[in-house]
């Protein structure tokens, strides 16, 4: 917003809210971090596409889109939690719990109740995280590390560690997994809608502004009269609900409730996507747009590894390397101090 750089009294006239130039505004809206992500994404796409033209087939793009839906949902809520200055590494376990709950309740009472039950369990799981953090005054990493183990255990207990139910013939689950609206797969719709809601709330409402404020300086936020506890509880509760929604998608895609196998390690991917997308892990900085770009990039990377026929175990190595590179670039650019250097 450089155009406002004049003496304030010179621009007192009420109509003098300055308009920024188009390019400048577009850049501001996208953000520098996102521009570099976009460039990296284009380079990756060009690299893969130059060797394997089938990458550009509509069917392959749909494959990427549906493959990232589950992880994308988790990355979105992880972004919100990180913006608030927290971290939630229990989302993967919560997704597994959501998956078995949705399949088991479905077997008894049908798809609608199955999905609602899963989301209800997610709300509860998220609230437990929030309560432990707020009222137990436990560091979020430790609190959700504990519930990461606990929720996984609960999922294994209720399912006896086995896949549950068979949703592969149910119309609702089939629609989620393989249906489409206006030619676009349902999974992509779900991801896009959740992303859009998160983006709008963060960018255009006071709720979003307060989340950034709490992540930036929680003391300032408290002194400004913001009820921080309520925000923490609400954000972790929402993270739980969205995590179990991701679990419902896992059930739909695999045709049964998976306590662990569909969701293990998703929390790390979610944190990776958020960090790659420009979220500062100390809170207050980051955008949904950046996270979504990173999610797409990780999806393209996985897809490329398959197309090139590389041993899929390299996926984890590639993801890890990408995260390190992204964070290093981010820290260097933000002028982050060296360990022990005074500010």
């Amino acid at each position, binding site marked *: *917003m*450089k155009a*406002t*750089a*004049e*003496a*304030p*009294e010179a*621009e*007192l006239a*009420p109509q003098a*809210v300055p308009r920024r130039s188009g390019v400048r505004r577009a850049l501001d809206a996208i953000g520098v971090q996102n521009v570099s992500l976009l460039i990296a994404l284009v380079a990756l796409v060009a690299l893969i596409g130059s060797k394997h033209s089938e990458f550009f087939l509509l069917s392959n793009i749909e494959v990427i889109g549906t493959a990232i839906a589950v992880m994308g949902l988790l990355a979105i809520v992880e972004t919100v939690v990180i913006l608030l200055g927290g971290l939630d590494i229990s989302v993967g376990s919560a997704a597994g719990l959501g998956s078995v709950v949705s399949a088991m309740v479905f077997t008894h009472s049908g798809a609608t109740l199955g999905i609602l039950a899963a989301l209800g369990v997610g709300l509860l799981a998220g609230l437990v995280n929030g309560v432990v953090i707020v009222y137990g005054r436990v560091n979020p990493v430790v609190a959700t590390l504990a519930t990461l183990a606990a929720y996984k255990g609960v999922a294994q207990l209720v399912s006896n560690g086995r896949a549950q139910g068979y949703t592969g013939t149910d119309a609702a689950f089939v629609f989620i997994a393989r249906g489409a609206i206006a030619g676009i797969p349902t999974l992509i719709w779900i991801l896009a809608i959740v992303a859009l809601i998160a983006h709008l709330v963060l960018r*255009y*409402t*006071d709720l979003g*502004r*307060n989340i*950034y*404020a709490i*992540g*930036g*300086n929680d*003391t*300032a*936020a*408290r*002194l*400004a*009269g*913001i009820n921080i506890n309520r925000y923490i509880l609400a954000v972790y509760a929402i993270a739980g609900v969205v995590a179990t929604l991701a679990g419902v998608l896992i059930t739909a895609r695999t045709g049964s409730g998976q306590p662990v196998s569909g969701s293990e390690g998703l929390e790390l991917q979610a944190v990776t996507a958020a960090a790659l997308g420009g979220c*500062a892990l100390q809170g*207050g*900085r980051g955008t949904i747009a950046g996270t979504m770009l990173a999610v797409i990039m990780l999806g393209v990377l996985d897809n490329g590894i398959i197309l090139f026929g590389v041993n899929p175990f390299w996926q984890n190595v590639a993801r890890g390397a990408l995260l390190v590179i992204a964070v290093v670039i981010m820290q260097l650019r933000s002028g982050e101090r060296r360990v022990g250097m005074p500010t």
Partner: protein
Amino acid sequence: MSEPILSLRGVNKSFGPVHVLHDIDFTVRAGEVTALVGDNGAGKSTLVKCIAGIHPVDSGEILFDGKPVHIHGPRDAAALGIEVVYQDLALADNLDVVQNMFLGRERLSGFLLDEAEMELAARRTLASLSVRTVKSVRTPVSSLSGGQRQTVAIAKAVLWDSKVVLLDEPTAALGVAQTRQVLDLVRRLAEQGLGVVLISHNMNDVLEVSDRIATLYLGRMAAELPTRELNHSQVVELITAGRSGDLGLARPDVVTI
């Protein structure tokens, strides 16, 4: 002498076994700068936080505009028109000037943030205080200097048609020129009719800018006198010994925390 806008009567405050404020009487008048001085740990910040509703008082009354009030949190204080600029600058580094000035009290149109309106109001307030140091209201606060940050914090306090502004060591970390700017700003707030409380350890600043000086000594109000009736060494004596000539506490030697 103008009307008292805010007064405290017999306020006590303890943290567990530590009795920090003893029977404090304290008055803030509209259009005046009241300096609140005292040694480290005398209880100045605690007094401010009691007025702001951060700490509940144990006993005693707070009167606002002559009426007893109960302040249970920052929002209650803000609703009365009491704003505080804290010692440890309460600004969020990741947000810009406008976003900080409206922190927790964003203006909305419908469900959405009214950015244009907030930006305008922020610039109008900065202009009314003749602030020239903050060039763009959309700069992130992290890139501002200490003086600019302090200016933003003070402007934030007057944005709200506030009646009383409490400033806890606003010049502590500032250089000569920036201190000058902040002190000018403090004076201007009083000229606009606000009741201003200034906490400072710099006696020259206090003597120059204040109308009255209230001295805390080990949690007790040692003296509350017009600045023109005091000189530098009397203030220093009141701060360090609780007494100067026939001013101050009757028996400061028996006073303990």
